[in-house]
Structure formats: structure tokens, C-alpha cells
């Protein structure tokens, strides 16, 4: 299967045998300060062995005898649902968390990294999903930050440029090292991060959801780079939710569930169904509550909606029915959030109109939208959803605050009654109304915010990634809540990047592609392949 990825061998690769090159280079370059790894020849066939890793957080066992073994020159997919412990395991590897038990060995030697930089200096690097770069500065400065090449005490731009160019040429990355990094696309920025890892002579590279914001073409380019690295003997951990990609690019797959190691298999022995079964540990049907809502008449019509400032939605028209759950699917960057923001009046629109119950309405600001019976749950809960340092009470009543006025003061009694209603009907687990919302779990925070919006008595709810960063159990409760709302005759639009979620709870699914509405699927005809096909339509 992987023969097709074979690369034209250049002299650089030929000189070295797979798996040994990184070792040799590290002997020359690793500063011996912290951990020296390469004094002894590899004692095992694995470049990385993580055994029986345990990590306890207050109230949760995040890792329970987790393990991962990585062979040089392979791509090892690490899979599991959100909250399965993948990122905790990686954080233990990089020394961001200290594991409570278990052992990490690299080339047979036990290691304890003190942080990402220390790990990087020892050939272990990670490309994060959310790229941490200094956007105002050039590509090459970002790559050499913390270890600028110097000549006569001054930073040498020439050396920096040449070294960067060398790595880029090696990996076929068509980026000028002098470009300001903020001007690059996400995929280019990601490639810069990979190149940074390579410049540290990384022999273990962790890629966290590398394709979540890439187009199909960019994914192909990334795979070419991954294959080059594989040919150089780099061992890669590939974290992703995308089954086809994983089956295509990886050699081995490790599956985790609830912090535990479940299985490690050769990719060639696996199928999508098998992986899902191992990940979920139960049949998929149980992941979603039974659908009981019945969509009624059209409640909202959106006609030719186009945002004023691009990137935004372009010429989007659709109908929403009473008691309907309408899903919005699309790749990252397909402007689903922008569509919701435009409807809700956070973003301005250039043209188009919105009709509610047949009458045109103007949502020029969120305030207008709320008055017109809209509510919006934003995507970034921490940044634009919760008031972290404020109480549950404050967070519950804030969107509805003017209705608690009694004269010029606010009525404490009604606010308390309503907050209690939020806590009870949303089943928020909290010690009291005075608890700071920040100290609740993600799922409970989300329930409070949904409750906040329900207090404004909306007819149309816009939910942007309502289950992001929420554990599996709480997700089920959120799904149930959404279906209950539809049962009560409220109309819900759900934006989600998790296709199974949309397929599980929606009545129809709209697919966005690069700002356009690529198509709307009835749930009976919807499947992942069809959604992906539409999502790529305008890319």
C-alpha cells in the first residue's frame, strides 16, 4: 500500500539507513545538558515506549495504564473520542504534565522531559492543532526562535535564511523564509511548524489533528511531506478523527478509550467500522437519544445572505422549520460560524434578507436578534461564552438582564428563581448559584449558557459547536436537550465539525463550502461521503 508513496531518493537520504540518521545527527548536535539519549545503541525496536502511564486529575482518572509504542520510520495513528486521553498522554510525553505512574523510554532509555523545548532539543516535537506562532514575525525567525544562529555575537540572517531554505527545499515547502508568518495560510503555517521540528532533527513527531483545517489538495501535500519524513526514519504519532486518512497514511493504529489502552493494530487489518467499535466500545446507535421531534411549518427564511466583510457567507438561502434541528456541516474555514454570526447580527451583511414568520426582520446587532427571538451559542465558550470569574447566577441572567428590573434596581428574587430553573432544567451539576462558572466542567458550563439563552425565550437557537470539548456522557445530555427544545417547537441550527453528531440528531443537514451553500441533505439521504463531497465543492 505504501509503495506508491516511495520518493525519488536524493543523496541526502541514501547516505543513511532508516532509523539511524536521526540518531547520528543527534550525537553531533544534542546539547548534553538535560538528558543524553544517544550514548547507547537502541536497546529495542521501538523508538518510543510509553508503558502503564497513569494520570489522576481531581475527580477524574485521565489515564489508566495507557500505553503507546512507536517504531522508527512509521506513522502511528492515535485514536479515541474527545476525552479518551490522547492529549493527556501526549502532554505527559512532553513533560507538560507529570505522570503519576508508568514509564517513558526513548531508544530504551527512561526520560523525563521538563517541557516542550527540552523535548524538542532531544528530538521529540509536536505540531499542535492550534499553531503557537509569533504572527508578526518572519517564518525563519519563528523557526529559529530560542536558538538564533549567530555570527560574531549578532544574529545572522544569512545563516538563518539558508538553513531554513535547506529544510524547506528538502521537504518541498514552497514558502519564502522571509515572509511574515501571519500572511500565510493555515496549511503553510502548519508546514512551517513541521519544518521547525525537522530543523531540530526530530526523530519523533506528534501531529495533532493536522488536517482539520486543510483542503483536500493541502492534505495531499501534507501526506507527501509525511512520507518524506517516514523515509528519513522519523516516527510520527498522528492524532486524527478522520478514518479514511488514518487508514491511508498510517502503519499502525492505537486506540484509546476512557484513558485506557484498548488496542494496537496494523492499519491494514482495520476497517472504519472496526475502529469506531473499538473507540466507542458500544454500538453507535446508543450515542444519540431517540429523535422525537416533528418539524412543522417554515419559521425562518434566509434569502441570498452575503456578508459585508469577507471571508463570510456568500449568497446563502435556506428555510428553517418550526421544531426542526438543522445541521450545518463543512470543513474548517467553510464559514459556518460566519453564517451564524451574520444571521445573529454580530457580523454585517452586504445583501440578502431574513424573514421570520413571513415578515422581513432586521438583525443589525445581537440586541436586535435577541428581540426578534434569536439566541446564539458561540463556538469559543471560554472566549465569548462564559464570564469565567462570575457566578452561575450572573452567567444565567446576563442575556436577559433588563427583564429583572424593578424600578431602577434589579430584583434578586426573580434572578434567583430563574437561575434555579436553569440549574434544574438543564441539570447543571453545581454546589450553588454563587459558584464561579469557571470551576465547572465544560459540559456544565455549556448547559448554563444554553439555559441563559432559554431565559430570553427564543424561538430560533443558533448553536455553534455545542459539544466541543465536552466529554461523551455530557454530550448525550446536550443532544437530549437539543431534541427536547425541538419537541417544544423551538427551531435549532447546529453547526458541528463532528459529522456523526449531525447525522445523529438533525432532521436536515446543510453543507457549506468556502462560504457557499453547497447543498442540503435530508437526513434519510445523508452520509459522511456525501457530506464530504459537498464540502469540497467550492474549495
Amino acid at each position: 500500500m505504501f509503495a506508491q508513496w516511495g520518493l525519488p531518493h536524493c543523496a541526502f537520504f541514501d547516505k543513511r539507513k532508516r532509523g539511524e540518521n536521526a540518531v547520528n545527527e543527534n550525537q553531533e548536535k544534542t546539547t548534553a545538558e538535560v538528558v543524553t539519549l544517544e550514548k547507547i545503541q537502541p536497546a529495542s525496536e521501538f523508538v518510543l515506549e510509553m508503558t502503564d502511564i497513569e494520570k489522576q486529575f481531581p475527580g477524574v482518572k485521565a489515564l489508566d495504564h495507557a500505553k503507546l509504542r512507536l517504531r522508527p520510520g512509521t506513522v502511528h495513528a492515535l485514536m479515541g473520542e474527545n476525552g479518551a486521553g490522547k492529549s493527556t498522554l501526549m502532554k505527559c510525553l512532553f513533560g507538560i504534565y507529570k505522570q503519576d505512574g508508568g514509564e517513558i523510554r526513548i531508544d530504551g532509555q527512561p526520560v523525563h522531559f521538563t517541557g516542550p523545548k527540552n523535548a524538542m532539543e532531544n528530538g521529540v516535537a509536536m505540531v499542535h492543532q492550534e499553531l503557537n506562532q509569533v504572527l508578526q514575525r518572519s517564518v525563519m525567525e519563528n523557526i529559529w526562535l530560542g536558538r538564533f544562529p549567530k555570527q560574531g555575537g549578532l544574529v545572522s540572517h544569512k545563516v538563518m535564511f539558508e538553513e531554513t531554505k535547506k529544510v524547506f527545499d528538502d521537504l518541498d515547502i514552497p514558502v519564502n523564509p522571509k515572509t511574515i508568518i501571519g500572511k500565510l495560510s493555515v496549511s503553510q503555517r502548519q508546514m512551517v511548524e513541521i519544518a521547525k521540528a525537522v530543523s531540530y532533527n526530530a526523530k519523533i513527531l506528534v501531529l495533532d489533528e493536522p488536517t482539520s483545517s486543510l483542503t483536500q489538495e493541502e492534505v495531499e501535500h501534507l501526506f507527501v511531506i509525511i512520507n518524506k519524513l517516514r523515509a528519513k526514519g522519523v516516527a510520527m504519532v498522528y492524532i486524527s478523527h478522520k478514518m479514511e486518512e488514518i487508514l491511508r497514511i498510517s502503519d499502525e493504529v492505537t486506540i484509546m478509550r476512557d484513558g485506557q489502552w484498548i488496542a494496537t493494530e496494523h492499519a491494514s487489518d482495520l476497517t472504519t467500522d472496526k475502529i469506531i467499535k473499538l473507540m466507542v466500545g458500544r454500538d453507535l446507535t446508543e450515542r444519540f437519544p431517540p429523535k422525537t421531534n416533528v418539524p412543522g411549518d417554515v419559521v425562518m427564511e434566509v434569502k441570498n445572505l452575503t456578508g459585508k466583510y469577507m471571508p463570510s457567507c456568500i449568497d446563502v438561502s435556506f428555510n428553517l422549520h418550526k421544531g426542526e434541528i438543522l445541521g450545518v456541516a463543512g470543513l474548517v474555514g467553510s464559514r459556518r460560524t460566519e453564517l451564524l454570526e451574520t444571521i445573529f447580527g454580530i457580523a454585517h451583511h452586504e445583501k440578502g434578507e431574513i424573514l421570520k414568520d413571513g415578515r422581513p426582520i432586521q438583525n443589525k446587532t445581537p440586541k436586535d436578534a435577541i428581540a426578534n427571538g434569536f439566541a446564539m451559542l458561540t463556538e469559543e465558550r471560554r472566549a465569548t461564552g462564559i464570564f469565567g470569574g462570575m457566578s452561575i447566577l450572573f452567567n444565567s441572567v446576563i442575556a436577559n438582564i433588563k427583564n429583572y428590573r424593578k424600578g431602577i434596581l434589579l430584583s434578586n428574587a426573580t434572578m434567583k428563581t430563574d437561575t434555579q430553573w436553569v440549574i434544574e432544567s438543564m441539570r447543571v451539576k453545581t454546589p450553588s448559584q454563587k459558584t464561579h462558572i469557571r470551576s465547572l466542567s465544560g459540559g456544565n458550563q455549556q448547559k448554563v449558557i444554553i439555559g441563559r439563552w432559554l431565559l430570553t425565550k427564543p424561538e430560533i437557537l443558533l448553536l455553534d459547536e455545542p459539544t466541543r470539548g465536552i466529554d461523551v456522557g455530557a454530550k448525550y445530555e446536550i443532544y437530549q436537550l437539543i431534541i427536547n427544545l425541538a419537541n417544544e417547537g423551538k427551531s435549532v441550527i447546529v453547526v458541528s465539525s463532528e459529522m456523526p453528531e449531525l447525522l445523529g440528531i438533525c432532521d436536515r443537514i446543510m453543507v457549506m463550502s468556502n462560504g457557499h451553500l453547497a447543498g442540503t441533505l435530508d437526513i434519510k439521504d445523508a452520509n459522511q461521503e456525501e457530506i464530504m463531497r459537498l464540502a469540497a465543492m467550492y474549495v
Partner: protein
Amino acid sequence: MEEKKKWSEFLLNYALYFILGIMIIFVIIADPSFLSINNMWKILAQASTRGILALGVAGMIVLAGTDLSAGRILGCGAAISASLLQSVTYASRMYKGITEPLPLWVPLILSIVVCVVFCLVNGFGVAKLHMHAFIISLGTQLIAYGVLCLYIDSQEGGAQPLASLDPHYIERVNGWTLGMPNLVWFFAICAFAMWIIWNKTTLGKNMFAIGGNTEAAAVSGVNVAKNIMLVYLVAGILYGIAAFLEAGRIQSVTTATGLNYDLDAISGCVIGGVSFNGGIGTIPGVIIGVIILQVINYSLYYLGVNAYLQYVIKGLIIILAVAIDVRKYIAKK
């Protein structure tokens, strides 16, 4: 429609420069001698000390901070320099023990030491105590002012201006070398040194990285606290030099010396494109900003604008500069 939008964008983004251009044209019409070489040197020489101060403040703004104490710190340095360099024949000089003129480097070094100490206090507050630069420098501003007043008040005759400075010192500061005022030379040398630091040293690169994305810098192994302290240290040295020169330039140091210099320095940086969001700025920008500000001062004076009205106009110009700067960074929705 599109064209129109672009034009209005363009006009807005360069509004400041248009206004300045119009102002200068008015001045030239009122008095063509404004354009003379001599006048240009004069403006530059006047801009020099504040320019050196601005070179220091700019680093803190790049770190997404600021410095409100720069002016008062400069006041302290200037008082030290002036008190040690009063003419030895002047009867009511502060240090009667000094009977031979001190070599100039002694007060220069002392001025630098005093300024560095204040700056390191600010730096410590920002780097180690994680205070916002605005708050800590608000505090040191008051402290520095108090120290300055105490120092000047400690003279035998009470609080009187530190004047009658050593003519040799005044000549050094205000003289000319190779057809250019010495003050301009000092400014040029400091600016060049700072250009090297900002663009060619690890400290400069790290400073931009910390200002742009502190976490990315820390993850890449940059010692954030140490680099912040170093930026403040460099600023302290610049303040010390500026203070030494300023005392010689104005030839009389009082408790009011340095008042609002920090605001001039900050304004100069902002006009020159150093962003308050951090991570963005250039040394040529700072120099141009400072010079523009000085030209404004000079033009308003030249045009005979009421002194109080001058404050109003300067304030408006600063607001305009920042408003334009901010526009560049807001994502429109």
C-alpha cells in the same frame, strides 16, 4: 463602489500625514525660512533627547507594555548630571566640595546608574510580579518625582534650579561636530545602536517574539523574564544618556524637568507605527515619529498658535494616530 471604499480607506490610513503636510505647507507660506538647513538642524537637535528617550520606551511598547515614568526618571538623571557639573566658580553650587570640574563621564555614568535602577524596578514588576507596565510605571513615576524633589530640595539654599553649569559641558552638548549638532550625533549613534539591537541580536528578536506571542516565545525556550529585564536595562541606559544630554541642553534643571517627556516619547512611538498591541515597530519608525512630533511643536509655535490651544491640537493628533493604528488590527465583521 469598491474604488470609492479603497479611496476612503487610503485617506483614513494616511490622514495623519496629510494633516501634517498641510500644516507644514502653511508654515512654509508664513515663513519660507522655515525650510533653511539651519532650522532643520535646530528641530532635529531639539528632538534628540526625547528621541533617545523614545528609543527606550519603544522597546517596552513592543513588549505590549508602556512606560509612564520615563520623564520623571529622566528628571532624576538630569538633576544628578547638573548638580555634579555646576560651574566650580558658582558660589551657591550644590556640591561645594567640587573645586575642579569633574570629567564628564562621571556624571554620565551616575545618571545612567540612577535611570537603570528605576527601569529595573519597572522591569522586575513586569517580568517577575506580572504587573501591567502601566501600573508599575505609574507607581515609579511618583517615586521618581518624589526623589527628584527631595534631591533638589536638599540644597543648602532650598529648592532652587540647578543652573550655572560648567561651560565646557554646555559646549560639549550644544556644540557642532563635522557640520552637525552634537545632540544630533548622539541621537544618531543611539539610534544606530538600537537598530543593531532590535534587528541583529537575540535580545531584539526575543523582544519581538515576547511582545507578539509570549507563549510561543516561552515554548520555544526563550527566557521571557530575563529578556524583559534586559529590554528595561537597555532602556535605562538610554534614559541615562538622554538625561545627561537634556541637562546640558536646557542648562537649568528644576523639579519640572522631564514632565510629560514620557508622553511625548510614547506619542512619537505611536505616530511612528509602534503598535500598542505589541510585537510591531521599527527604529526608523520611532525616529520619524519623534521628528514629526517635534515638527508639529515647532510649526504650532511658528504659526503663532495660542500655547494652550497647542495642547488641544497635540492631543487630537495623538488620538488620531492611535485610532488609525488600531484600525489596522481590528478584524471587521
